[in-house]
């Protein structure tokens, strides 16, 4: 991914100088190691300050509902981000014609927490060099295979190529192995109900209801989230099991047929909660039951947005 940087800069510069976009969304260098910041540049000469590597790990599509529809936006996107953009266009949250997507086939984003877990809190620099990472701690630099720092969602990724981009940089990568894609969900399914509940409760109990997962997710754009609803009061805001369970169950369920499995939610969570196993199951079911994968085009409606008289009646023989 870092090899794509020069072309990303060239494209951003071209799009801005030719007036094809009003703003280009990418990343700029970090104030903090391993944390590049999403950047919104509006002048061609700012393109040179852009960065792009595995630490650029947010889902940039999350900014689209915040920008006005008439703004012409250029954006650098991975496979999952491009799918998220498709879904937002399908759900009428943005206008595809006003977007210029610069696609980068993705080798996976990096999980900075894996580096601090391994090397301690004082990682002062980490450079993504394609196959390896150069990690500097307390003045000493060590090498690490990139694969060991991949975020878990990327290890399960099925669609790394942003094939819906207006321009793709570099050759497409092979699609992910379907067996690997469902590994996390299948592992849960293999457990007993009691074990599955125990895992669910164990992860949910750390939740502090900060809603970082919601804000990092491009699909969570509701003007009023269900948790803010007062009349009626469906779920509680407390950090009690009732509140935590309700939050995790419902947010996941509201993603059915919409989640692109980018893992931004997990990466954002300050309490290290692993929640992608919930949407994994929903994604798996949508594929198995309806042959549907979210974001593969901007025409096909998600399964919950459409229904048929011929649907299977699971409850009635």
């Amino acid at each position, binding site marked *: 991914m870092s090899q794509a940087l020069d072309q990303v800069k060239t494209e951003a510069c071209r799009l801005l100088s030719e007036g094809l976009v009003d703003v280009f969304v990418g990343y700029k260098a970090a104030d903090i190691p391993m944390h590049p910041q999403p950047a919104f540049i509006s002048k061609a000469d700012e393109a040179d300050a852009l960065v792009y590597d595995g630490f650029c790990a947010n889902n940039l599509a999350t900014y689209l509902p915040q920008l006005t529809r008439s703004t012409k936006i250029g954006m650098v996107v991975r496979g999952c981000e491009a799918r998220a953009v498709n879904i937002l266009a399908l759900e009428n949250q943005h206008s595809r014609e006003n977007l210029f997507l610069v696609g980068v086939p993705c080798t996976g984003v990096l999980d900075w927490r894996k580096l601090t877990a391994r090397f301690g809190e004082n990682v002062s620099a980490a450079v993504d060099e394609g196959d390896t990472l150069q990690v500097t701690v307390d003045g000493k630099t060590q090498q690490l295979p990139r694969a060991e720092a991949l975020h878990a969602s990327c290890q399960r990724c099925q669609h790394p190529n942003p094939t819906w981009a207006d321009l793709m940089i570099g050759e497409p990568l092979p699609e992910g192995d379907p067996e690997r894609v469902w590994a996390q*969900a299948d592992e*849960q*399914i293999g457990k007993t*109900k*009691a074990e*599955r*509940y*125990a895992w*669910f*409760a164990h992860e949910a109990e750390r939740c502090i209801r900060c809603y970082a997962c919601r804000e990092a997710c491009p699909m969570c754009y509701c003007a009023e989230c*269900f948790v803010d609803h007062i009349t009626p009061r*469906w*779920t*509680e805001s407390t950090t*009690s*099991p*009732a509140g935590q*369970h*309700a939050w995790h*169950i*419902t947010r*996941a*369920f509201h993603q*059915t047929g919409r989640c692109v499995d980018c893992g931004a939610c997990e990466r954002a969570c300050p309490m290290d909660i692993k929640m992608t196993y*919930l949407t994994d*199951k*929903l994604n798996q*079911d949508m594929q198995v*039951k309806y042959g549907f994968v979210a974001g593969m085009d901007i025409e096909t409606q998600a*399964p*919950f947005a459409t*229904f*048929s*008289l011929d*649907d*299977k*009646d*699971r*409850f*009635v023989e």
Partner: protein
Amino acid sequence: MSKPRIALFQCRWCLYSIPDQEWVDNELPENIKMVKVPCTGRVNSLYLLNAIQGGANGIMVSGCLPEKCHFKEGNLGARRQLDEYTDFMDYIGFDKRRLRMFWIDLQDRGHIQRELAEFEANLSQLEAEPAAAFATRVGGEA
């Protein structure tokens, strides 16, 4: 051993026959709490979760036959969502046999009583845990 607590989301159109309607309004057993909805399409996952967290051991959603929805397609949307919600809740430990959707035809008198009785009998056979652990809401009158 007390009877299973059942939450029933009842579409008001499918119980058109007067005797069934009156039975549901006046003679519903104590362990069954009913919420009348204008269409099963109105039932969203938060209703189901609310019932589960409030202590329901089983949930029933009762509506018109697929081709006879009073509002044309509401029950079809409900069918898809409820199918998935059932599987999703089972995935996190709430037995899928505790959620059930069924259709009532206007002519089919007594169907609702039979469904409820059968559902209750089935619920009694299921293991209490881990489903009971989902009843996390405490305080006040449940």
